[in-house]
C-alpha cells in the first residue's frame, strides 16, 4: 500500500501526536495516556506515522520512545502553500461571479419594478 505524508496528517489524532512529539521525545505509554481512545488504536496510529517516516521509535532499555522526524513535513507545508493559493484564487473568482450575477439580478429586479 502506498504510504505518504498526507495520509499521516489526514487524521486529527495523528496530527495531535505529531504536535506532541514535535516538542519532546515521549515513550509510547505517555503518548497513549494523552488520549481517551484505546492503546491499540494509538499503536496503530503510531505505526502509520512510522511507516510514513514521520515518527521514529527507539528502544531504550525497557521503554520504547517516539521521536518526530519532521523533515518530511516540508512536503506538507509546500502543499499547504500551494493549496492556500488554489483556494484564494477560487474565492476571488467566487466574489467576481457573485458581483456579476447579483448585479444582473438587481437589474432584472429593477426592470420588473
Amino acid at each position: 500500500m502506498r504510504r505518504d505524508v498526507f495520509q499521516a496528517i489526514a487524521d486529527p489524532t495523528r496530527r495531535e501526536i505529531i504536535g506532541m512529539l514535535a516538542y519532546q521525545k515521549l515513550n509510547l505509554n505517555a503518548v497513549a495516556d494523552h488520549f481517551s481512545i484505546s492503546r491499540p488504536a494509538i499503536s496503530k496510529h503510531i505505526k502509520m506515522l512510522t511507516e510514513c517516516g514521520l515518527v521514529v521509535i527507539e528502544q531504550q532499555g525497557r521503554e520504547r520512545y517516539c521521536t518526530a522526524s519532521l523533515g518530511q513535513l516540508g512536503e506538507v507545508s509546500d502543499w499547504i502553500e500551494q493549496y492556500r493559493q488554489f483556494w484564494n484564487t477560487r474565492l476571488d473568482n467566487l466574489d467576481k461571479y457573485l458581483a456579476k450575477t447579483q448585479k444582473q439580478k438587481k437589474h432584472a429586479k429593477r426592470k420588473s419594478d
Partner: protein
Amino acid sequence: MQSASQTKESVLTLTRQYDYPAEAVFNAFTEADALAEWWAPSDMFKVSALSLDFKPDGLFRFRMDTEEGPMWAKFTFGNIRRHDLIEFVLSFTDEKGTVTRAPFFESWPLEIFVRVTLEEEGGKTTLTLESSPFNATQQELDTFQQNKDSFRQGTEASLQRLEKILAR
C-alpha cells in the same frame, strides 16, 4: 461521511467576507454552471460541469481543460445545511470518475476534505473554509471495523441459537 473525525483543527482555514447574502453564496455551490464558472482559476483554463447531484453523497463531476491537457475531478458532497454548511471531498479522477493521484502536482493528497460554513450578518456573508487531507485509509479501517463487529454479532447470535438448541 466520516466528517465527525475531521472536526478537530483543520490543516488549512481561510475566511472571506462577501457583500452578498448567504443564500447567494450558497447557491454558487449548488448550480453546475455557477461552480464551473468560478472554479476556473483563469480564462486560460476552462471548466466544464459533467454532472451535479447536490445532496449528501451526491457528486459534482467536472473536466478541466488546461494547456497540459484535460484533467477530471469530482466533489463528493457530505453534510449540507441550506445556506450555511456545505461539506465535500475533492478528488482528482480519471475520465470515468475513478479517484486518481493529482496529475501535474507532485505533492498533493489523494483526496481532500473541505467544509464551507456561511454566516450572514447585515446582508454580508462570512465564508469560512476548513480543509484537510481526507483520510481514505481511516475510512477503510472503519469499514473493516464495522464489518468485524457485525461478523462478531453474527457469530454470537449463532452461538446463542446453538446454546438454545443444546439446552432443549
